[in-house]
């Protein structure tokens, strides 16, 4: 039993609970996705509905007339936040940082801690480029693509509210859909890459962010690779101004070989990825909460791997810190 699991039952009445996005309370029925989990008492249901993130646990419990035992029973369906959660996503506007992701979960798993720390001082837009968001290990809970997609959007929206960032979900076809697109004699991947890069450049031109973060495509998934290659070629071609950073999209515990391959990509290149770590110790508990909200696409084990990887990254950082996230900033190497 880990300390973090035990701490999930240590609840602060001053914290701000919000129902996890994959949990729904309809009437007195609770669902995980669309899988019925339990039937609640009216007080329990009222308490869950009161947990909107903009009022404290004490206030939520008071509204629903819920006692401590009631709160404890429902605690694992709630995400606990240390400050009021924004009631709506931040409205669109100029941004200083653009974070791109192939899947909606990747930017939060790879750089959620950093985003939590830096977003208050750095207006941030998180863009999920591919739209179908259809993978789920939980067949019973999310039996259709549409339900996975809906739950994924709920997750993305909540995480953006928690972190105080703008977010946008594009609708580019993911790799599995692209495979079904029939176009005689033409390379759909190339066309999709062109379309994606054009769209990204149009966005960058309109927002002019000083920093852009993209996935390092360490797991080799076609969508992440498409995004990575689009940004890499745009940077190499001087098609936008600003810094280009890559974040890990595979837990380093699982992906050391992939990192080697990532680095080897730049051998003999005039582009050089400079690795650096960001201390996320102050936001680690909040990142843990973020990870717990991502459930329709990833299992608990995968979420834990990301949290353990933060420990590893912290130990390897210089100087060592308790928790860290790894990034690479792309520079133009000096030519001797």
């Amino acid at each position, binding site marked *: 039993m880990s300390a973090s699991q035990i701490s999930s039952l240590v609840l602060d009445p001053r914290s701000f609970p919000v129902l996890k996005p994959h949990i729904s309370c309809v009437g007195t029925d609770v669902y995980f996705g669309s899988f019925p989990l339990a039937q609640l008492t009216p007080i329990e249901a009222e308490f869950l509905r009161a947990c909107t993130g903009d009022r404290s646990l004490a206030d939520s419990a008071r509204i629903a007339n819920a006692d401590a035992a009631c709160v404890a029973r429902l605690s694992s369906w709630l995400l606990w936040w240390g400050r009021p959660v924004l009631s709506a996503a931040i409205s669109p506007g100029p941004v200083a940082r653009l974070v791109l992701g192939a899947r909606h979960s990747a930017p939060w798993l790879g750089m959620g801690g950093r985003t939590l720390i830096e977003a208050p001082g750095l207006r941030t837009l998180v863009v999920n480029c591919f739209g179908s968001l259809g993978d789920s290990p939980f067949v019973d809970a999310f039996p259709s693509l549409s339900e996975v997609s809906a739950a994924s959007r709920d997750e993305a929206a909540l995480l953006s509210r928690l972190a105080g960032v703008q977010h946008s979900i594009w609708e580019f076809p993911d790799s599995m859909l692209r495979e079904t697109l029939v*176009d005689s004699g033409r390379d759909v991947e190339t066309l999709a890459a062109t379309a994606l890069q054009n769209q990204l450049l149009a966005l960058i031109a309109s927002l002019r962010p000083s920093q852009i973060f993209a996935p390092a495509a360490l797991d080799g998934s076609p969508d992440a690779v498409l995004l990575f290659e689009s940004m890499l070629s745009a940077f190499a071609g001087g098609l936008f101004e600003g810094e280009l950073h890559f974040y890990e999209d595979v837990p380093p515990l699982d992906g050391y070989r992939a990192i080697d391959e990532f680095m080897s990509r730049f051998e003999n290149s005039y582009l050089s990825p400079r690795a650096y770590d960001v201390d996320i110790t102050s936001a680690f508990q909040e990142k843990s909460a973020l990870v717990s909200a991502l459930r329709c696409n990833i299992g608990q084990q995968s979420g834990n791997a990301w949290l353990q990887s933060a420990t590893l990254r912290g130990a390897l950082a210089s100087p060592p810190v308790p928790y860290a996230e790894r990034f690479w900033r792309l520079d133009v190497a000096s030519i001797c």
Partner: protein
Amino acid sequence: MSHPFVEPPLLLVIGWNDAEYSEKGRQSIVALATHLRDSAGIRACLAAAPAEPAARQWLFSFLGSLKRAMGATAGIIIRASELGPGDLTASSTNGLDEVVIIQDTPDPEAAIETVRRFQQSGTPSALGIRIWLDVPGTSFQSLTCAWKYATHAALRVELPPFRQISSNGIPPTTRGESQQLACEWLRTTITVSSHGEIVPCPAYLTHHAQGKAQGERPPADIAVDLAQRRNAWMGTGGSHPVCASCNRLVRFAGPFETEIPAQPVARILPAPAFIDHVGRDASQFSDDDRANAMRKLLERVHAAGGLGPS
């Protein structure tokens, strides 16, 4: 006459932004439908119901006649906030195939009750019902569960192929016509406003409302133009082959395209039997851990003055 389309298109008529279908608009829609029947054919027609009752009745009648005369599949889109008890009955009696209810309010209960009453009325009907969730800022999953479990019918609850309210976070751009029309929507769907004006896809209705539409054009011109622009996304011409406003390449398939999957979608990853991953955190505590955690919780609760009656 050669068909300009590989397959007959879906005709989508969006009228509610114009409050009602004007007399001129009705004539344009009838003319376009007739022209398409004679040229490309119509696979299906889906039309948004106007708020004005007489216009809505005309639309029911038009769709019914379209179905009878052309054999096209016919459906109507109605906002949940405007769904009346008679709408489902009228759809059924006019022979429509499907009603698409756009859930545009956070509380679905009123619309659910309307559907439930229709189902319980015993009216013999093959009318399909589909729900499109379009309430930004609300839990899609909660709405899905509410609809799925309240009506006990094979409803399709899904995200809409277009949104009435853009939650995209990116303001629509104002690009040239050729770029706007490079929209994947046109692969299968012809979208016209209630004034008979064609728009690239429903995402552009805002532009239309702001007077930025292209203006009325003869149906023949529209058909030829569309034929030339098919597969626009696949074409490399132009610097922005993807619709610059909506970016939507995934859910362009409108209604009538697919059946309810009998099995979970194939792309879902193989997985072990369902486990309550949400409740497991607490259930895995040992008795001692649970007791300690509960003791700490109660201590903090008492220290903070309690949580109310206990």
